[in-house]
């Protein structure tokens, strides 16, 4: 299988100033993360809020500049490309944002919002842009007479469709969907996920699907990566991960999925404490203060992500 996107040892530290001792402090939002996404695959990236999922997505698109590590897109290293060189690549990678209200310019009709990427990249001739806008609008389930309306006239679900249409305008290969459904209510979520799934299959898109909702991830992903405090703790094929979680954190996450059958109430693995501060992460395994299965080695050595069975990797001293 061909690889579309790959990141190696990706790091992003946000400098926050100095501590009382005059030492420079940093929020380690993404700390040494490596993974790849195959072509036409959906990788679900899941984790609690604040674990660095979104930062990870933005780093791949070079909206943020990484502190360390490298990013490959279609086999070429894009980590250090400048603005101009990046522009050629940007038309092949797009993003769909979380907030359908904030990600559209309130003073721009949705027709021109969708045409915007084409205008920037000059992928379609001016005379043909109109037709292309109409084609995409139909594809995402908007009616063409809505072309000249403004974003405030649309509902959340419709706006998210507009966001998807804009992301598709230049026919990209790779799309980052950053919590694209978490701001919508459940019935609309289902519509948008199905739309994304259909489009992904029809257009052969590679998708990095970022979410904190495991049922959403389960529905759409081929493979799933679980993040905790800036690190990937487990990565596996969807079925593998959901049937056979290896990392204790993944186990706890999965047990938190609500089951709609009161008779079938599972024993929940409830984690104690809060997520530690990413400014000062725990030594060794970052999960050890909350881990129900912790051992002596856990606060001393950082576990590396290693493959336990084919395609299933986990970063834990238990394996």
């Amino acid at each position, binding site marked *: 299988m061909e690889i579309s996107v790959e990141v190696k040892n990706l790091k992003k530290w946000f400098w926050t100033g100095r501590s009382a001792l005059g030492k420079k402090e940093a929020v380690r939002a993404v700390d040494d993360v490596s993974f790849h996404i195959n072509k036409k695959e959906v990788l679900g990236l899941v984790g609690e809020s604040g674990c660095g999922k979104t930062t990870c997505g933005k780093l791949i*698109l070079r*909206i943020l500049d990484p502190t360390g590590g490298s990013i490959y897109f279609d086999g070429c290293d894009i980590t250090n490309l400048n603005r101009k060189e*990046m*522009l050629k690549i*940007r*038309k092949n990678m*797009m*993003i769909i*944002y979380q*907030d359908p209200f*904030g*990600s*559209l*310019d*309130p*003073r*721009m009709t949705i027709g021109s919002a969708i045409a*915007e*990427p084409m205008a*920037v*990249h000059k992928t379609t001739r001016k005379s043909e842009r109109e037709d292309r806008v109409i084609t995409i609008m139909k594809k995402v389930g908007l009616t063409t007479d809505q072309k000249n309306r403004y974003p405030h006239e649309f509902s959340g679900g419709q706006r998210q469709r507009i966001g998807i249409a*804009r992301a598709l305008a230049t026919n990209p290969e790779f799309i980052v969907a950053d919590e694209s459904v978490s701001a919508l209510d459940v019935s609309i979520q289902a519509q948008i996920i199905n739309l994304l799934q259909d489009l992904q299959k029809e257009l052969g898109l590679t998708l990095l699907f970022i979410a904190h909702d495991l049922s959403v991830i389960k529905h759409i992903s081929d493979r799933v990566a679980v993040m905790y405090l800036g690190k990937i703790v487990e990565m596996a094929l969807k079925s593998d991960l959901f049937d056979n979680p290896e990392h204790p954190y993944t186990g706890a996450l999965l047990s938190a999925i609500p089951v709609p059958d009161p008779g079938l109430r599972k024993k929940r693995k409830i984690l104690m404490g809060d997520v530690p501060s990413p400014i000062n992460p725990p030594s060794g395994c970052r999960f050890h203060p909350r881990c129900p299965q912790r051992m002596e080695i856990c606060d001393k050595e950082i576990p590396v992500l290693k493959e336990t069975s084919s395609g299933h990797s986990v970063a834990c001293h238990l394996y």
Partner: protein
Amino acid sequence: MMRRFINNKSALFGLVILIILILSALMAGFIAPNSPTPSPPDLHNSLKPGFWSKDGIQGMPLGTDALGRCVLSRIIFGTRVSLSAGLVAVGIAMILGIMLGVIGGYFGGWVDSVIMRFVDIMFAFPALLLAIVIVAVIGHGLDKAMIAIGIVYTPQMARIIRSSVLYIKEMEYIEVQKAIGSSNLRIIFRHVIPNSIAPVIVYGTLMLATAILDCAALGFLGLGAQPPTPEWGAMLARSYSYIVSGAWWAATFPGLAILLSVLSLNLLGDGLRDTLDPRLKT
């Protein structure tokens, strides 16, 4: 939004007065009973009262000034001068202010620091004093006065637009544009400016009032419009000494015209602000 504006009585009053002023400026040639600058001046009719007195002069309802010119006609033609002077001055302030404010707010860093410190320095001078200094440097005349006032108002504009740019540039749709690959120029012109322009429109209206006032002030000091241009400030300056000798009309009516135009613009500006930004309404 329209309804909220119409329900605002004082704003509506301001708008009506302003429309009257604009109409009289546009059609000055048709409305004015006499020429504002007759030549040679009719010194025979110097300082004759208007309709309120039985000595009043026929055909000049607001009387005449020291050179026997019709005060009403001069005020009507003066509307043209004052309004256009205000508009040009505010226009200059808007263009310069938007440029400085957007560049500073959008790019931030040392560029912003340099621009804003410069603006702070400008703010340290009283507006009129600074205008006088600029006129002293670039020379007298109505056009120079407009430029001077435009420059003096630039810092205010720059600050207003900078603050809204600072807010707008953090919006997600700006980040989307960066992800798409839009150039900074494209982002600024297509997204940042259209979204941060609303307060500029409001303050522009309010600024127009003070610009007219300052233009009149420069005219009064003899640094603005030069005779025989019928400019309100200049008219006031050339007639106020006759108030003591009983000829109050030549100075009072231009003064009232200034008052009325400034008042109408202020009411309109306040009304616009309330309409466009209901959060400010208490």
